[in-house]
C-alpha cells in the first residue's frame, strides 16, 4: 500500500500510517474515518498521550505491515501476528479502535465532537444519544440505512 499523504507538516510522515492502520483495525474506510472530522485531532492526541517512542514503534510496525502486505488477507494475517499477538502493540491498537468507535481515550471523551462522532452508533444504524437526532417517528421503522 502506498503512503503518500503528509499531513500536519512535512515532517509528520506518520499521519497517513496512522490513518491506514486505523482503517484496517477499525473496519471503517479512511474516508469514513476522515468524515468524523477528528482524524488530525486524534493523531495529535495520541502523540501527546503516549510516550513518543512507543507510538513511533507502533507506527513503524504498522508501516511495515502495510507496505509489505499485498492484499486484504495478508494484511489481516500480519496484523494478527504482529499487532494483536503482541501484548504492547495490542494494547495500543485497542485504544485506537476504541477512540474511533466511542470517542474516548482511557475512558475520557477527547472533546464534544468525539462523543458525537463515535462510529459505534453508525454501525448499529443509530446516533449518539442527545445529538444528530433523526426526527419525529424515525424510531418507529427500520432504520433507513440498514440495507437489510
Amino acid at each position: 500500500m502506498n503512503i503518500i499523504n503528509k499531513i500536519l507538516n512535512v515532517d509528520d510522515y506518520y499521519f497517513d500510517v496512522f490513518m491506514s492502520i486505523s482503517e484496517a483495525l477499525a473496519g471503517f474506510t479512511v474516508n469514513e474515518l476522515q468524515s468524523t472530522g477528528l482524524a488530525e485531532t486524534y493523531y495529535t492526541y495520541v502523540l501527546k498521550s503516549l510516550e513518543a517512542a512507543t507510538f513511533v514503534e507502533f507506527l513503524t510496525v504498522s508501516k511495515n505491515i502495510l507496505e509489505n502486505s499485498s492484499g486484504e488477507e495478508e494484511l489481516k494475517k500480519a496484523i494478527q501476528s504482529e499487532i494483536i499477538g503482541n501484548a504492547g502493540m495490542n494494547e495500543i491498537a485497542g485504544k485506537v479502535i476504541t477512540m474511533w468507535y466511542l470517542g474516548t481515550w482511557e475512558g475520557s471523551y477527547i472533546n464534544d465532537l468525539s462523543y458525537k462522532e463515535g462510529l459505534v452508533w453508525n454501525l448499529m444504524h443509530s446516533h449518539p444519544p442527545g445529538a444528530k437526532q433523526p426526527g419525529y417517528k424515525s424510531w418507529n421503522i427500520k432504520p433507513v440505512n440498514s440495507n437489510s
Partner: protein
Amino acid sequence: MNQTHNKKDVIIVGTGIAGSLIAKLLSDHVFDVAKGKMIHRADAGKSDSIKEISILMYEAGLEAGLELDSVSSMTTYNEYIRTFYREEAKVPNSPYPNLKQAPSPNVLDMEHIVQPFPDKKGYLVQFGPMPFASDAIRVGGGTTLHWLGTTPRMLPNDFKLTEKYGITIHKPDSKEKTPINWPIDYEELRPYYEMAEFEIGVSGDVSRQEYPIDENMEKYYGNYVFPMEEIPQSYMDHKIIEGLKGTSVKLSSGEIPLMMVPSPQGRNSIPNPKYGKTKIIKAEPKESGYKLVLDSSEKEEYKALGSVWNPYMGERCEGNASCVPICPVQAKYNALKTLKKALYKLNDHENLKRNPYMQIQAQSVVYRLSVDQNDKDKISKVHLRRYTSKEKTDFIEESIDTSDAIVILAANAFENPKILLNSPYTTQNGVKTAANSSDQVGRNLMDHMVMLTWGLFPEPVYPYRGPGSTTNISSFRDGNFRGEFSAWISPLDNWGWGWPAFSPGSDVAYFISQENLFGAELREALTNRLSKQVLFHFEIEQLPNPNNRVTINDQYMDVLGIPRPVIHYELTEYEMKAMEHAKHASDQMFKRLGIKDFTKYTAADMNSVMYNGVRYSYNGAGHIVGTHRMGSTAEDSVTNSYCKAWDHPNLYIVGAGNMTTLGTSNPTLTLSAFTIRSVESILADLEIQLKK
C-alpha cells in the same frame, strides 16, 4: 423588579414540579376584594378591586438554572448538554451541577453496606441493610429535568390495598397492624389527572390503553382524549408485540394474558384535534371553598409547548434518545415550563411580562421551620442558608416571618422530611418535630425495584433509538396475587443494554480485549450484537414499611452545617417474591420470542438478594416516594388528602412524599394530580388570610 413586597402570602420551598404547579395555579388567580373570593385572572377583567397573591419561592440550586429569560435559559441549558456530552458515566445527574452547598444523591455514590458501618460517600448516609438505589437532583425545575416522562395513571385498586387485598402494615415501632388505604380514591382524583395531563402535555391514545382492572376502560377514562396523539412505538416494540400478541404467562396465581400497551408520555407529539381548544385550570368558588375545573374558555387550539427559550424548538419529540438524563430540545416536559408560566404573564397587549408579585430566590437552602405554639402551632419562620457563589461555602443566614403566610414545603421526598425532622420545638409533652405528631415523617420510604432482564433477539430490532420506552406490559399491574406479592409494570426499553451492561461501551471493550477482534470482523460482531439487544424492566411495587426511613443525625452534616438524609432501607419477602415471579414471567416471554438470555445477577451488584436459593438484583427507578404520607386521620399520616399538615394550620407538604402507596405507575403524574388538587385547599386558606 419594579414592585416587591416584604410580606408574602405564600412561601414555596422548591421549584420542582410540585412547587411549580402550585406557583402557576396560584399566580393565575387573584383575590376579588369586592366579592371576597379568589378568581381566575381571565375573569378578573380590569377591576380595581383585585389583589394579587404575592409568592416567594426558594430553590437550593444555582441562580443560573432559574434565569428563565430566553437567552439565559438557553445558555444554562446548553451548558448542561455540553456537560452531558463529556461525562463518561451518563447517569441521570450527569448533566447538572453537582453542588457542594446543595448536594444531590447520585447513583454513582452507592456502595455495598457492611453493617454496622454506613455508606457515607456522597450526600446520603446509608445504613442499609440495602442501599437505597435512586437519585434526585437539586436544580431549578427539580428532578423533572432528568425524568423519563412516562405518565401512566394509578389503577383504582392501588388506592385501596387493604380494602381489596387485605394488606396491612406495621405501625411505627409496634407489632400492631394498620391499614394503608389512601384518603382519596381514583374516581376522586380523575379530574385532577386530566389537569395534570394538560399541564404536562401528555401524548397518548386512550382507546389503546388496556389494564387488568375491574372497571371498564370507559369508566376509568370517561369520555376523554389525551392532549396529544400517541408517541409512535419503536420498531423493536412492534417485533416484540408480534411475537407475544395473544399469549399469556403462567404464574402460580394462574394464566395472565399479555397486554402490550403504548405508554402515555409527557413528551410532545402532534396535538390531537379532538382534544379541542387549549384550556385553563381555574377555581370555581363554592359556597365554602373552591373546586378546580379544566375550562375550555380560551380561543386558541391546543399547542405543544417547546423549550423554555424558544417555543418552536422541541414542538415534537425528535428522537434524541437521551430523555434521561436530558432532552436537548425540551420536547420532554420539565417543570421549568410550568415555572416560566408562573413567572411570566400575558399583559394587555398579549406580550409576556415578568410577574412582579412572584419572586424566586435561588442558592437558598431551607433547613428548618419554627413553630409558634402561642398561635395554634403555626409555622412562624422559615430558616435558610443562602450561599453566595458556586465556589464558596460561606453563607448568609436568613429567615422569613411566615406567621401571616402559607408555607408550602415542595422539596423532594428526601428533603421535605429532612427539613421537618430538623425543626424541633419544645412542648409540655416534650420535644416534638414539625408535622410529626403521627411519627410518620421520614417513614415509609419507597421505590420501584427495577429488576432488569436482557438478551439478544433472533433478528435485528435496532435499539438505541427513540424515547427511552414507548411500550409497557401492563398485565401484572393488578390481580389477586397482590395479596401475596407485589404487582409490577414491565416497560420495554428502547436503549439496548445501556443500563445493565453499560453498552455499547462494554461490547466494544469485550470484542476488542476478550475476543481480539479487529477490522471487518469486529464491525460485524458489534453490529450483530448491538442491533439485537433487548431489555425488559420489571418495576416492582414496594409496600410502605415504617422502618424504611429518612432520619437525621447530628454526626452527619453537609458543608453548610445542614443535616444530610440518613437512610435505613430494606426489602421484605413481599417484594422478593415478586422478583421470583417476574423472572418466571421473563423466562417465558424470552423463550417465546427466541431471545437468548444474557441476564446475569452477581454478588457484586449493588442491590442483590437471595430468595429461595436464587439471586435477584435490582436498580432504583428514581421513584422516591412516601416519606410524608397523606391519610384520613392525624394519627396515621402527616397530611390530609389536600397535602395540608395535620399539625400546623399554615403548612402544606407536597410531592411524591405524600403518596400512601406506590402502585405500579411512575409517580410524577399522580403527585401532580394531587398537588393540583391541594390548590383548592390553599385557595380557601388564602381567602381567609386575604380577608383580614
